[in-house]
Every structure is written in C-alpha cells, then in structure tokens.
C-alpha cells in the first residue's frame, strides 16, 4: 500500500526473488526455531548437571567394602545349656558376640602374618558395629554352627569403606576421632592379603535402615517394600475410582451447576499442596479411623487422595478427545450408552488413561511431605509382613528414606541418600517407560 507501483495481489511478482514479506516471515520462523532450540538446550544441560551430580555422589552407594575373617563360635559362651534352643541362646546379647569378632580378627591377622601396633579393640574398629548383630542373627538362625570356626564376611566400618571410595584420606584421618591413619594402614594390609574387598552392595536394596553411626549398614529394603505397598494401594484404589468417576462425569452426568461445581473442585484438588493431604490423612485415617501410624495403608490412602484428581483429569481429557462421532455411531446402531462407552470410547481413551495413571503413580512414588505427617518418617528396622497384614505394619517410603538419610551428619549418608535417589529415579524411569510402551501398544490409528 505504501508503494503505489507494487503489485497488489499476494501471488504476483517473481517466484525466484523472495519478496520482503516472505523474507520477514521466514526470518521470524527461524528466530522462533532458535528460541525453541535454546530452551531445549537449557533443559538438557540442567538434566545433565542433575544426573552427573547425583551419579557422582551416589554410585558408590552401590559398592561396599567387606572384610573376610575367621570366627570361632565357642559353645561355653554362646550356648551354655548345650540344647541349641534359639530362645535360650537369645539370652546372649550382642555384648557376648562382640569379643568373638574381635578375637576372630586378631586370629585372622595372625594367620595371615599381618602385624599391627593397634590394640585389639582399635583393630576391631575396622569392623562395622552392625556386623556383631548380623553375626548374632546368623548364629541364632543356624545353631548347629556353634563350636565350629566359620568364615564370616563382615562389613567394614563407614570410615574404612569411605577410604576406598575416596571420601577418607590419611590427612582427614589425622583429624578424625573415628579413624586413625594406623587403622587405614591395617586396612591396606588386609587388602594386600586379599581379605578386604569392595564388591557390589546387594544389601543396599535389601537391608533395612541402620542407626546414625552405622551408615555402612543402611539399606533401602523397608523403604522399597513400603513404597511398593503404597503403590499397590494407590493403583488398586485410584485407578478404578478415578476412571469410574471420570466416565460418569464425562459420559453420563447431566451438565448442570452441580457437575460444574464438582469439576471446579477436582481441578482445585489437583492443585492442593500435598502436605495438606498429609494433615487430612492424619486427622481422618489415624485420629478418626484409628489406623496405625507409619503404616503403608495410611500412606497409600493419602497418596490415593492425592493421585485421584490427576487420574480423573487425565482420564476425562482422554475421554473428551475421543471424537463424538464414534459415540454417535454406536448409539445410532442401538448400543446403550454403557455399551458405547465400554466397547468404543474406553478402548480409544485407554492410552491416555494409562499414561495419566502412571504419571499419577510416579508423582505419588516421589511424594514426601504428606508421608512425614503420618509418621512414615519413623526409624523402621523390621520388615513389614507380606500383604495384606503387612499393609498395617510400620514401614517407610523411598523419598522419606532419602529425606531421613540427608538429616544425618555422617558424610557417608550423603552417599546413601544419593544412591537412594538413583534407585528412586530408576523406578520412575521404569514407570515412564512402561507408560510409553503401553501408549504405543494401545494406540490406534485413525
């Protein structure tokens, strides 16, 4: 319009030469692509930073230093009665077993010709305190071993373990009241004799939590079981309730003020901070209904409440995205509303529903705040029983366990916490991959 001689129509002029409008449009497009690319790059960089920091801190949690020693199990100390009855033998506490390990270590050192200036007690500090309890449990479970000398693989103490993971050095040992350079020398000597090894830490996945002074023994066993139980409860409750509610709201409910109100409230619920659900759980499930504290059942119920809105919103969205012509087709053939929904709409909405459910589950798996309020933060060493009774036994959950680890002062727990984060992320990754797989599996082409 500014140039009177310019052709008026958009499609006029040479095709070889870009007109200024096209050039401008292309430039805008290019700029937009650059912004997008930059955003993606920032995201990836953040992700890489996060993953490397967690991996560099946490991978060592999957390895554990152990010491191989020969331990004598004298009858006069462990089972004076001689009847090998575990109940009677249980009278001997860990105080009775501690000297056995100490003597065993001394004997092992002698047998292998390793000399040390350390006292027997200082030398025994190389061994984790947890090992005494382990030995006791082992003997109580296998009374026939009494009287024999058996090889035992004991956990090295946290500092020795840290020495082989680069956390403890000779310099830091000088300043550390928990470990001395001489002890490190002894550890090196044991390693030289092939008695001290660093191997894969299966116990990290199976062992329960350990006290603050025994990071080397802390594991995720109880937390994994607790999280698994809670996921089970969430899946069994939230999926059917959520899908049923969505189908009702989307396909059957009349459109009126009341359903509008419900809809608004569901959206609001999805945005309620999770800690509020924790307070609700505490008030209703524990104080009012009288369910036990720290139990996966309560955690599962709270997480179900929290996950429901997510599942309902995702399910309704995927039901909505099924073209109405499909419903018309089924209804037009004389199918009832329910037949139309269950034969045609639901199968088409399935990928979306499953994705929403798994995202909800993943969210629940990583949720910490509400679980703190219902007592899942407790220190639990006993494995919960199998379901269904186990749902009422005290347990912890993975994210709470991570929180717990980070609360402790021993630097070895940083490693455990990062290791637990890796485990949690792996679970989340598996769940998301399942979601993608299911979506691919159920997706139908139009």
């Amino acid at each position, binding site marked *: 319009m500014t140039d009177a001689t310019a052709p008026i129509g958009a499609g006029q002029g040479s095709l070889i030469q870009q007109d200024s409008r096209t050039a401008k449009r292309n430039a805008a497009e290019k700029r937009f692509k650059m912004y997008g690319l930059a955003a993606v790059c920032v995201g990836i960089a953040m992700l890489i930073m996060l993953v490397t920091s967690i991996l560099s801190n946490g991978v060592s949690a999957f390895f554990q230093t152990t010491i191989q020693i020969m331990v004598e199990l004298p009858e006069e100390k462990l089972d004076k009665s001689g009847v090998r009855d575990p109940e009677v033998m249980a009278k001997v506490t860990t105080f009775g077993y501690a000297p056995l390990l100490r003597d065993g270590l001394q004997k092992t050192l002698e047998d292998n010709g390793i000399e040390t200036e350390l006292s027997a007690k200082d030398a025994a500090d190389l061994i984790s305190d947890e090992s005494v309890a382990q030995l006791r449990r082992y003997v109580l479970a296998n009374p026939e071993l009494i009287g024999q000398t058996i090889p035992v693989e004991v956990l090295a103490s946290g500092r020795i373990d840290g020495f082989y993971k680069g956390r403890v050095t000779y310099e830091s040992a000088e300043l550390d009241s928990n470990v001395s350079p001489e002890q490190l020398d002894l550890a090196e000597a044991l390693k030289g004799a092939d008695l001290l090894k660093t191997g894969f830490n299966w116990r990290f996945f199976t062992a329960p939590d350990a006290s603050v002074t025994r990071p080397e023994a802390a594991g995720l066993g109880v937390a994994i079981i607790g999280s698994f139980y809670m996921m089970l409860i969430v899946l069994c409750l939230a999926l059917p309730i959520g899908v049923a509610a969505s189908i009702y709201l989307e396909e059957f409910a009349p*459109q009126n003020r009341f359903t509008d109100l419900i809809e608004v409230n569901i959206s609001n619920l999805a945005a309620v901070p999770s800690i509020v659900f924790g307070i609700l759980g505490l008030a209703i499930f524990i104080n009012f209904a009288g369910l036990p504290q720290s139990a996966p059942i309560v955690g599962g119920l709270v997480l179900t409440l929290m996950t429901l809105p997510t599942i309902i919103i995702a399910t309704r969205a995927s039901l909505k995205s099924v073209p109405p*012509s499909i419903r018309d087709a089924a*209804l*037009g*053939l004389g199918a009832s509303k329910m037949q139309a929904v269950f034969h045609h709409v639901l199968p088409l909405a399935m990928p979306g529903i499953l994705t929403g459910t798994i995202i909800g589950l993943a969210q629940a798996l990583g949720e910490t705040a509400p679980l703190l309020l219902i007592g899942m933060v407790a220190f639990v060493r006993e494995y919960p029983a199998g379901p269904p009774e186990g749902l009422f036994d005290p347990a912890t959950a993975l994210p709470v366990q991570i929180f717990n680890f980070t609360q402790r002062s021993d630097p070895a727990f940083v490693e455990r916490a990062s290791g637990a984060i890796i485990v949690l992320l792996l679970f989340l990754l598996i769940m998301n991959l399942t979601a993608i797989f299911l979506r691919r599996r159920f997706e*139908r*082409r139009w």
Partner: protein
Amino acid sequence: MNDMRLTERAVGTQTTKITARAVQVFYGDNHAIKDVDVDIADKTVTAFIGPSGCGKSTFLRCINRMNDTISVARVEGDILIDGEDIYDKRVDPVQLRAKVGMVFQKPNPFPKSIYDNVAYGPRIHGLARDKADLDEIVERSLRRAALWDEAKDRLGEPGTGLSGGQQQRLCIARAVATSPEVLLMDEPCSALDPIATAQVEELIDELRQNYSVVIVTHSMQQAARVSQRTAFFHLGNLVEYGETGKIFTSPEDPRTESYISGRIG
C-alpha cells in the same frame, strides 16, 4: 391435476410409518425446526431436500432421538412410529435406535476391523446364532452396500483405513446389518463416485421392499431417481411435501420452485 390425484392414490394405499406433528427443535435459542408436520409412508423412499443449514439433519435425528445426545437440543411436538409416540417417557431410545437405523452425514467407522464394524450391531442385538451366521450377515450387508468385492480380502483391516467413499459404504453396511425397520440416511452418497452411487441407489430401492427409507440429499437428480416422496425444507420450515414427481415438475411454493431450479441454496 389429474396426474396428481393418481399419485396421491398410489401413496395412499400404503400405511403411514412415521407421523410427525408440530415438531419444534431448539438448539439453545436457535429455533432450528419450526412446526413441522409430516407423514412418512412405509415401504417408501422419502427424500429430504433443502439448502445447507435448513434443518434436514436435525429433523432426521429427531426420528431416532439422536438429538438426545446433544445437550443443548430440545425437541417439542409428537413423532409417532407405528402409532407409538417415540418421545413417550416409557420409550427406551436404545430400543428405538435398533428399530430406526441411521447412516450419518460424515462417515464414522469404528477404529476396528471392517468385519467388526459390520458385526457390531448384530452382536449387541444377538442377531446371529453362531459365527457362521454372523459371517453371513456381514457378507450380505457388505454386498448390499456394494463394498464386498473391495473388502472381502481385507475384512481384518481397520475400517478407518478405507477411503472416504468406502467408509461411507461401510457405514451403510453397518446400518443395514441390524435390519432396522426404518433407515435414515444423511447424504449417504456425498463422497461416492457415480458407480458406487448407482449401487447405493440400487440398495435403497431394494430396501424399499421391506423398510421405510428416509434420505437426505443435495442432489436433485438423486432425489428424483430414488424417492417416491420428497420434502423440501427451508430455514427450518417444511415448505412443501408431496409426491416426488410433482415436487419436481410443478411445485406449489415459489421457494421450492426457485430451489430446484437452482436459485436458492
């Protein structure tokens, strides 16, 4: 005049299948069908013609109560099929729709196999005793919809993978598979080539032996070819209804006249 009396008599011998009295349809505030009275005869093809947006589909959907699924739609007046008011409280629309089949304006096959598309109706209504029975219904329906030759080797493939015209014929096959008493067809040939159109018209003519067929079409020639009676809708009003030959040769209303001669619509 003489001619008209003859045809009136010819139609008059047939029983009335559908009776509509003072039917009004509102979409919210939009008054889409205004006071329509019509008698649709049994074993007859009735064509609805009229410009786009005049309410043909809307009126068609009243006959099998598909308007129930549109929350803003409100239907008033009486529609009787075989003397029974289909908007009676006791009438189950599900049962009604098994009796009054419909082919929609836009082809809407299920994203399932061709076979399952056709077999769905007979399955939910328990029309087939066994697999062989069902196979036979599927084959017959596909043959009637002129789709058998193209589809017989790919019955297991998704119906949504067919071309637009094939999908339309699949929807016709699906509708006839349940053997409804009334078949409502909303522009069933809009995406078909002349050969398939001829086949579908043949089918419509064949269906007339047993059923009452109502067809919406934008093609005057088609209305003239297949229908015995024609209704002309304009802006929600039923302007003229009568014997097809008469509507096309000597319409009474000036609006009908200008529509069929191509001046409105």
